[in-house]
């Protein structure tokens, strides 16, 4: 009589395919996984605690470090939450610029996902093409804000400054060349027999189960639920744009891949509409309690000088209330629960991280699969540890 023994192995936290510092303790029976325990927290920087000791403006660069693959989206979520708490309405031009920035960030995030997902599974070529095109968006970010990966371009009440004609030109250039590049990614992977064998019927999750696990974003849409925060709660003028929500059928790795590939196209569609219809006007709300006065006034007018001094040194204050606001991050519903207490510092900031919940379902998804499929499943969820650990 033979006895079945399981073997426990440790994967991570420095494994290149865990997208950061995720540690998985896997229990194997042969090469089949019978149980898995994710350990997170290696990248915990206490952003929520730090935010309680800063003023509202100072938190913006911290949010860049959540999902650092798509930083502007985090800025958007945080700034809109503060604006909801303070009751500020942002001018239309600023809203359009925010949409352009965040959709570019979404494409950037999906580029990183595509490159590393394919690289993990063994298709090495894709990463070079994806990163080549990602570089173009980084150049656009640099042109606008001076930073490539973490622009921190958004401000409470608007954006840091108006966009330059150079920026518009380079975004238009990107819109022109990107569809062809996207075609290239499809040619490399979509009908590739190896890719299909490695991804189809792997990590399947039904719609009900995905909802129960708190899935949002492309991972939920891959299971066939057409939920997108941009459509459900149209924020930042998203209702002006015409775009579709792609959904999958089976909820496996391949479906999640197809959904994200289609999202490239939809993001591009939104950017094109936003750039063509970019309205004229101010890019910051003119609220003496929140935004800086014009720099020319500061040199001549004492009240403008005082206003600037107060905003720079103390920061805007928020009422003692609680709000929740969510945006569609590149990984799912990125929510911020913000509690104000009448001072210039948040009393509590809770970040609803989509990746946190995606990772919590990992044991369920990888149980019964082979060890090599673990990598495919982690890649298809597109987790970023900066956001999980906060």
């Amino acid at each position: 009589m033979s006895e079945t023994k399981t073997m426990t192995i440790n994967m991570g936290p420095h494994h290149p395919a865990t997208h950061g510092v995720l540690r998985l303790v896997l229990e194997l029976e042969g090469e089949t996984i019978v149980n898995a325990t994710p350990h997170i927290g290696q990248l915990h920087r206490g952003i929520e605690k730090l935010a309680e000791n800063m003023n509202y403006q100072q938190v913006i660069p911290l949010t860049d470090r959540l999902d650092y693959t798509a930083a502007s989206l985090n800025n958007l979520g945080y700034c809109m939450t503060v604006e909801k708490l303070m009751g500020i309405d942002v001018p239309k031009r600023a809203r359009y610029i925010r949409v352009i920035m965040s959709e570019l960030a979404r494409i950037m995030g999906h580029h990183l996902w595509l490159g590393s997902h394919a690289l993990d599974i063994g298709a090495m070529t894709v990463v070079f093409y994806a990163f080549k095109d990602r570089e173009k968006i980084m150049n656009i970010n640099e042109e606008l804000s001076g930073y490539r990966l973490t622009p921190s371009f958004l401000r409470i009440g608007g954006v840091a400054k108006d966009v330059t004609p150079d920026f518009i030109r380079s975004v238009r250039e990107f819109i022109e060349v990107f569809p062809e590049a996207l075609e290239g990614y499809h040619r490399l992977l979509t009908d590739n027999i190896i890719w299909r064998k490695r991804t189809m019927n792997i990590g399947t999750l039904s719609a009900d189960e995905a909802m129960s696990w708190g899935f949002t974003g492309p991972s939920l849409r891959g299971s066939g639920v057409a939920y997108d925060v941009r459509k459900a709660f149209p924020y930042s003028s998203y209702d002006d744009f015409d775009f579709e929500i792609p959904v999958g059928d089976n909820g496996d790795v391949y479906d999640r891949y197809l959904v994200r590939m289609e999202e490239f196209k939809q993001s591009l569609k939104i950017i094109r509409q936003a750039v063509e219809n970019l309205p004229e006007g101010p890019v910051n709300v003119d609220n003496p309690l929140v935004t800086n006065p014009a720099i020319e006034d500061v040199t001549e007018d004492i009240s403008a000088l005082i206003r600037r001094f107060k905003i720079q040194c103390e920061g805007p204050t928020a009422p003692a209330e609680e709000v929740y606001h969510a945006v569609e991050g590149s990984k799912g519903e990125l929510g911020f629960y913000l509690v104000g207490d009448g001072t210039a510092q948040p009393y509590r900031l809770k970040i609803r991280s989509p990746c946190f919940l995606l990772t919590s379902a990992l044991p369920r998804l990888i149980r019964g699969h082979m060890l090599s499929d673990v990598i495919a499943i982690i890649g298809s969820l597109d987790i970023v540890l900066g956001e999980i650990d906060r």
Partner: protein
Amino acid sequence: MDYTKTLDLLKAHFPQGLLHQSLYHSELRITFDSRFFTEMMQFLYDEPSLGYTFLTDIVGIDYPKRNPRFELTYILFNMNEARRLYVKLPVAEGQYIPSVTGIWKAANWMEREVFDLFGIPFINHPDLRRILTWDSFEGHALRKDYPLQGRDFEKRFDPDTIVIE
């Protein structure tokens, strides 16, 4: 958004469970009595005309001067009608809260996070361990009395005793 049906049904089924209700930014917040908590959450999930089938997040907040000290906010979501409901639950220090992992699987890690950072324990949780901080970590990091720099932060000099010659 219209919450009259939610409120009417809750009042009809749990006349004593609903402690407080308020509307802010046209979103409803309700405060539950912890004695009826599990039944009310199960009801919100099961009742097809309400359809709060998605748990968005569990937020812990520490108010050291209040009694009871903590407040948990469960953000429920009706995906078909795009409607959010905020369920608040006051929690005293050391009080055990029934886990909702039986209703939503997503609650598993959310409750672990609240346990880790606030020290609020949950009953019937399948795997209540620390999640973001390490296992031997002392204290609960998001409590207001936990210092920002951490407890084991080494002070290089004490400005009161330093002598400048």
